[in-house]
């Protein structure tokens, strides 16, 4: 070989080796940290509220599987406390939480509330700072077989779980059930993910697309390995082994990802732990879900600033679908919800002792990965208190658009439940157009709202109307955002 050829070959080899080194260094090294509260017994099924403030997990450190909770104080998880209000059962664990942490689906074996069969799924709600006694999720979902390890989508409308019921591909399989508005659908096996071996501990990520699960199928590192699959349409993609160092030759299960975070948690019975299954933290998460928009805030009394546990409905104004129904915490008033970017939502909060609250929230696509804060102040039911009605009109018209109707139905229900109240519907416009024109338009729009409420059974004498035109802007500005805020219809209590 000539010297020049040797030199070129050497350079080419160097470049190739360097490129490989570069490629390797581009993938960040995943580090594994043990959870500080692991015990010598099994600790598994970590579950975290989406704001990361509370970590739930299952442990049999007391001799029986029970659910424990670690609350965050100043960003530090405190010592685990056993949740004792869920009722008695021989075994109980694997909680799945709604993003707001107000509803929990757990698995229990021989729970005192009864069941459809062996281990079944149960539901508990958080009220006044406590978890209610769990009740069975229903015979639509539960079977006479082993049904366990639920995971809820961030909108609470899709339930994933593991079951060894007949009809799967063998062993433990993954199933999915959808909320139909008043009940869960019959579970369907995830045939694209199930094998003749065992698949279990499914967890759906906050993007509602990325599903992590564990399987002991051949081809893994050994025992149970963690796999990831992504929803494409209605089916999941080919699952991928999440790889080392998360997967080992031991059993690796219960993988969960936090929204917009590089942190994931999982459980493993690998050597070197505290004993049995232990919980670990993986940073960074090598299979991150898509970033999502999260919104949080506090619901409180507008007059006293006391936190209020209120029912909250998030409606996608384009599809008119209720995308989330949840409740702010009774003690702290906090709420937390995951939203899809690129949509406009209506947020409605109500509590029997307050005037309901509605607001339109636009979440542009550019907001993906961000956390929005919206505090909600509920006005007490007293004279001169007003709430904005989220009603919509075509440009220059006073005919109610269809998307206004749920809000007006809510207003009608409010007036029916408070028959001693008289209200005034007040119409406002932005500053575009003449005073006289805007005055008439706002008056006609207020009349449209009154007409709808009267048709819903509210006595006409209880509702008066007024059009203010552009005389009472909410924001004195001419920007598009300010004008959108100023075009509004409000309902004000004038007598009770």
């Amino acid at each position, binding site marked *: 070989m000539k010297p020049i050829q040797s030199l070129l070959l050497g350079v080419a080899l160097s470049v190739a080796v360097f490129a490989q080194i570069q490629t390797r260094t581009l993938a960040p090294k995943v580090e594994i940290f043990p959870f500080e509260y692991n015990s010598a017994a*099994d600790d*598994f*099924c970590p579950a975290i509220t989406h704001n990361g403030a509370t970590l739930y997990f*299952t442990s*049999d450190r*007391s*001799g*029986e*599987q029970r659910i424990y909770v670690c609350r965050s104080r100043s960003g530090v998880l405190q010592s685990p406390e056993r949740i004792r209000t869920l009722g008695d059962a*021989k*075994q*109980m*664990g*694997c909680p799945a939480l709604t993003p707001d942490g107000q509803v929990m689906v*757990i*698995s*229990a*074996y*021989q*729970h*005192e509330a*009864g*069941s459809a*069969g*062996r*281990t079944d799924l149960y539901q508990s709600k958080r009220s006044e700072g406590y978890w209610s006694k769990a009740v069975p999720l229903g015979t639509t979902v539960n079977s006479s*077989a*082993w049904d*366990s*390890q639920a995971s809820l989508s961030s909108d609470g409308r899709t339930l994933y779980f593991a079951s*060894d019921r007949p009809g799967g591909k063998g062993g*433990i399989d993954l199933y999915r059930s959808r909320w139909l508005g008043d009940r869960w659908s019959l579970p369907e096996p995830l045939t694209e993910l199930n094998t003749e071996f065992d698949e279990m501990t499914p967890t759906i990520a906050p993007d509602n697309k990325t599903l992590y699960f564990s399987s002991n199928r051949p081809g893994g590192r050994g025992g149970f390995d963690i796999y990831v699959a992504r929803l494409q349409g209605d089916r999941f993609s080919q699952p991928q082994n999440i790889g080392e160092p998360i997967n080992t030759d031991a059993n690796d*299960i219960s993988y969960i990802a936090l929204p917009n975070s590089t942190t994931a948690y999982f459980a493993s019975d690998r050597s070197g732990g505290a004993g049995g*299954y232990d919980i670990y933290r993986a940073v960074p998460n090598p299979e991150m879900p898509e970033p999502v928009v999260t919104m949080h805030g506090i619901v409180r009394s507008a007059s006293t600033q006391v936190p209020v546990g209120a029912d909250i409905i998030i409606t996608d104004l384009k599809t008119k679908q209720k995308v989330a129904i949840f409740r702010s915490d009774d003690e702290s008033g906090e709420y937390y919800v995951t939203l899809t970017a690129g949509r406009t939502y209506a947020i409605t909060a109500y509590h029997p002792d307050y005037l309901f609250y509605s607001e339109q929230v636009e979440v542009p696509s550019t907001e993906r990965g961000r956390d929005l804060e919206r505090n909600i102040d509920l006005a007490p039911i007293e004279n001169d208190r007003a709430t904005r009605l989220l009603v919509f009109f075509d440009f220059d018209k006073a005919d109610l658009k269809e998307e206004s109707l749920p809000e007006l139905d809510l207003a009608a229900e409010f007036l029916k439940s408070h028959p001693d109240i008289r209200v005034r519907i007040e119409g406002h416009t932005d500053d575009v157009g003449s005073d006289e024109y805007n005055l008439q338009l706002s008056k006609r729009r207020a009349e449209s709202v009154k007409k709808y409420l009267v048709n819903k059974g509210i006595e006409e004498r209880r509702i008066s109307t007024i059009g203010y035109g552009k005389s009472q802007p909410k924001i004195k500005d001419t920007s598009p955002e300010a004008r959108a805020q100023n075009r509004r219809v409000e309902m004000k209590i004038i007598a009770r």
Partner: protein
Amino acid sequence: MLKRFLLCLFVLGIAGYADEDVLRPKGRPDQPPAPQAEGLVRNPWALGIEVGGSLSFFGQDITLHQSPDYQTNLTSGSGIGPMINIAADYALTDYVGLQARLGFDQKHYGTNGYYDAPCQQPIGSGNYVPARVDRSGSQTINYWTGGLALRYRFDERWVFIGGFTYHSRSSASFTTTDTVLTAGCEFFDDLGNPIGQRQQESGSNTASFNAIRWSLDLNIGYRVPLSENVVLLPRLGTQIFLSPLAPDDRTTGVHPVIGPVYSFTNRRLHAVVLALGLWFNL
């Protein structure tokens, strides 16, 4: 048959005892004996008292030797009688237990029918016409009982109890009421004096019934825990008797005019049992 039945129940019980948990349907493979849950360390013995009743269904075959075919209406009857048991339960596993019972069980049933009796009209004329007589009767048979059963809890609340019960007859009594429905006809006493259109007879007929009977008992129970150690357990079940209620009878039913008319065979009685049990875990 009994061995096969007991074996079947035992296998079912063992199969369901796999100590599953929320992580594994079959429990930890190398799991040492699971520590008992707090407050669940139990004495395997429980004592109970049961009160209730049984709805008995009586039946018999009546073979006609000649006409008329009256009394065929007496082929079946039913009635309710009380029962009371004291019982003990020994838990073999969380699901399976052995139960023993001692008690009193009364079987009661009534029958209704009619027959035509010869009636001389007018009296002294020697002219006999058939008179329709309504007959209602009831039988009460008292048994002392003792039984053994296997208890299998197939659900947190639901329990199957199956076993055999020995019935020892202690006494039996009957009541028969005949009412003449045909105008102008009535009953006469042994001296030939008219005594009216209604005649009632009652007494003991203990020997008419078999002294020993065995039943196969199959029950479904529902556990209602009242406290940590007290459970209310209503149960609904069947008593399938494996031997006849009474021997065949080919001697009664002799018509005073036309001779033997019918015979009674295959005299059977089964029952549906509803009992309310109060169990105390020791």
